[in-house]
């Protein structure tokens, strides 16, 4: 099935990764921490734009009718 065919590039990539020298753990940690930092920044930004009273705001969002 096409599904399996499409997955082949992925498995080739995995093989290539196996052959590659092991990545130093420190670098992996640095990447993970950068990713976490990115998420934290995003959440901080979103905290700043979220409506102030979540409970009341969500409760009051009532729609009538609709297709």
């Amino acid at each position: 099935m096409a599904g399996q065919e499409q997955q082949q590039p992925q498995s080739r990539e995995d093989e290539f990764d196996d052959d590659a020298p092991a990545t130093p753990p420190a670098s992996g940690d640095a990447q993970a921490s950068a990713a976490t930092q990115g998420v934290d920044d995003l959440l901080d930004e979103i905290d700043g734009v979220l409506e102030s009273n979540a409970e009341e705001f969500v409760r009051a969002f009532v729609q009538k009718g609709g297709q």
Partner: protein
Amino acid sequence: MRVMGSETEYGIHAPSAPGANATMMSARVIQAYAQLTRQRAAGGAETRWDYTDEEPLHDARGWTLERNQADPSQLTDQPPVLDAEAVALAYGREELEQDGEDEAGSLLMNMVLGNGARLYVDHAHPEYSSPEVTNPVDAVAWDAAGDMVALSAVRRMAADPQLPPVNLYKNNTDNKSVSYGSHENYLMPRAVPFGDIVRGLTPFFVTRQIMCGAGRVGLGQDSSRPGYQISQRADFFEAEVGLETTIRRPIINTRDEPHATADKYRRLHVIIGDANLSQVANYLKFGTTAMVLSLIEAGLAPRVEVHEPVAALQAVSHDTSLSATLRLLDGRRVTALDLQWMYHEAAAKLAQDTGVGDAVDGDGHTHALLERWAATLTDLDSDRTAASSSVEWLAKLSLLEGYRQRDGLEWNDARLGLVDLQWADVRPEKGLYYRMLARNRMERIVDDETIARAVTEPPSDTRAYFRGRCVSSFSKDVVGASWDSVIFDVPGRGRLQRVPTREPLRGTEALTGGLFARHQDAGSFLAELLGQTPPPPPA
């Protein structure tokens, strides 16, 4: 590729006026946009909707529903009149009194825009119906233009100290049991048997949500069960095939209102999609559906039938792991991804056989679409991080999971409900989708300049060009329009002149651009159009 278009109903909310009447607020949204366009058109009037060719009770299975059997919400062929009585009937006398009766009746409910779109009050929501386009990239651009129209109206209302500020949301449910739709329309040859459409599309519609679901916090129509699901709309579907759009919603809608030469075309009305902010999701929604319709027309849709499609639709929506299997009538069990791959494989083969999918000599869209479709399915299977910059439900889920991890929130926490709602706020400073877009966390198909142009310019390659240019060039003299007509009221002519536009691929810039260039006034334009005076010799 195919003539198509979108319809978007926006959720509407005035936090400072919780009892405000939704129909009245929606009419004020249309009014606000009319004020803006009147300014742009230097004193022109608004063009209203022409209801002559609306046929909401015609059923594609070959009959017409009796008027007295129809739900009142199905009677969309009559101009809605927002008089005091109508508002009171629909929403109760009490609400009307809160809002003041004087304003009712004076508000515009329906207008035709210079980009060829329709902007109107649909039940209790403002709705934007995009102009007809011929490919999914244009569908994305002119649908996003509607979001800019909604934004302009919101800004205008916010600047009016007399009115409570109104927010608009491009989503599909209030999570309290009400859903409002975003519909798609596709032109098809009338000759295709409707049964083939039902058979060919149902398995596709049950599963395409994994690419183009907008994501939703809450399970069940009233969100009574905590959790997160793929589609905003899935839980609101209760039937496999039917005419209704507001009750007993069907996976395949049978409304047969072609808005074109009826014995030649049908307009397939699709009500099952989510409203998408993600451009890639919207692109895939229109593009893959158009390709599946080509498969059906060629008699080459995959021969699969899903057991109990309505239950399957909801099972797929509730399974964010994408691992659940669906039972086919032939006994096989397959995942939603498997089913999408079957459609992809068939579409790729047809595109290759006909040549439309060729990277160089093809139709300019199919090749890119097939690639994007395959890449999305592959990423959904093996690289969710990659998929989350384009698949809307995954993008929203990653944000929600960030909150859950940082603050330890349960799925029924109101803050997660707020993130879900505010994801769809049309204001870029408030809408969380737009915050993600600004951080390059969402991929684009069209840039902001293209969308801005689509707010005022019609597509060049359909009859929307003729409609839009008539509205913007002769706004004082065009008193009405619809998908298949433009009505002129020209001084000196005794009666209204209705120009039919029944062929969706005529009225293009190539055919009528010169006519618009040659005439500054509606009278001489109309005279040449109707062949009453010889055209001037070529320069």
